[in-house]
């Protein structure tokens, strides 16, 4: 199992020089890998590689290592969809200019998120379904509108699920959540709408996130 600060180390080393604001993030006191503790807490998860689905569903919503694993698996699904969406768009949507730069950078971020989440989850990572992207990447205009929608759904999912995480897991998920918010803002700007439509962002439950994706044909209804 990876320790949590694996996530931050995956930031590409910025080529630009930062003089003043280089933070010393030492071996963190509170940064013990929460998944290591998850393993201790829920030994069954690891020992037999038992699928999560086989575990009794937790009734309580209080954050727990077991719930962290489930929650990260849910955002893994969303990152998987996003990574696939941008990869397809770069192949098929005939993008150019800023839209192409957007798809390239954001697609790279989503791939990094996906890989980081998979690393964190290890054997507890669920496999991803085939995503049917339909005509979302058929041309630049549809791509921009779809990107805005997908980023909004992703952000609302993070905002909804982060409250259910243990503090250590939350600290890591928040590093991704605000990047999704940046993507949503950028996508909206590209699509010609206001980048920040409200003073308080939405937070969606798992059901609502799935429904939003299903409505766009991006995810099958269970």
């Amino acid at each position, binding site marked *: 199992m990876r320790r949590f600060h694996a996530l931050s180390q995956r930031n590409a080393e910025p080529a630009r020089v*930062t003089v003043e604001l280089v933070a010393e993030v030492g071996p963190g006191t509170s940064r013990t890998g929460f998944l290591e503790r998850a393993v201790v807490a829920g030994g069954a998860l690891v020992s037999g590689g038992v699928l999560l689905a086989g575990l009794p569903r937790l009734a309580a919503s209080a954050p727990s290592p077991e719930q962290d694993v489930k929650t990260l698996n849910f955002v893994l699904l969303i990152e998987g969809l996003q990574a696939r969406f941008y990869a397809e768009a770069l192949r098929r949507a005939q993008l150019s200019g800023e839209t192409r730069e957007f798809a390239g950078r954001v697609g790279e971020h989503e791939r990094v998120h996906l890989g980081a989440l998979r690393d964190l989850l290890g054997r507890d990572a669920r496999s991803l379904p085939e995503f049917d992207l339909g005509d979302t990447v058929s041309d630049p205009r549809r791509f921009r509108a779809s990107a805005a929608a997908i980023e909004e759904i992703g952000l609302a999912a993070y905002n909804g699920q982060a409250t259910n995480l243990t503090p250590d897991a939350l600290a890591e998920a928040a590093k991704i959540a605000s990047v999704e918010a940046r993507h949503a803002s950028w996508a909206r700007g590209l699509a010609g709408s206001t980048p920040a439509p409200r003073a308080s962002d939405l937070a969606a439950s798992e059901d609502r996130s799935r429904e939003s994706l299903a409505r766009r044909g991006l995810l099958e209804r269970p």
Partner: protein
Amino acid sequence: MRIGALRLSELDRGGAVEETASRAGALTRRGLLGGGAVLAAGLAAPAAEAQGSDEDILNYALALEYLQAAFYTEAERLGALRGAFAEQARVVGAHERAHVTALRDALGGAAIRRPRFDFGGVTEDQPAFRRTAVAFEDLGTAAYKDQAPRIRSRAYLAAALRIHSVEARHAAWIRRLAGVVPAPDAFDEPLPRRRVLRVVADTGFVTSAPRTSAFGSPRFTG
């Protein structure tokens, strides 16, 4: 490890923030209250155990929102911004004011008072405004991210996360307008409170009230 989200020095090539920072230093040497000393004094006051309570965290957020709200409101009132920048200041200013209202209401009698600000020209000059807005929004995002895992009440956390992502949207928005990559890294890093306060202090934007009252005998024309 580098802080990915915040590169004040890089953004501040024109030296606006550096200029105000050195100016704050000069004022301090001359015996006037410099920079964020007021803000820091107000926030560092709670005892060690009180620091980190939910109330303390909300007050810290309120202090940063006061700063942002005052910045955009003054820029809009002074009317020195044009086009997309004026639009950004108008919309984002309304968001920040809504955040201030919400946090003050939530804190009730425990809310800290609004400090006095001296933006030293950055609200009335578009290039300086642009640099400062980028730095502020990246800073706000990094500050919320640092505090989120410390919030004990999940209901407060739910509210704070929704603001956190709005700050990230603002950051991406102003970065795009400024011609800087809206989402520079795959992960946004948190910034600890003492570093945030130092950045704020170095700008010199938080100032003391001028003395406009006295007890001496009037020598007006009578």
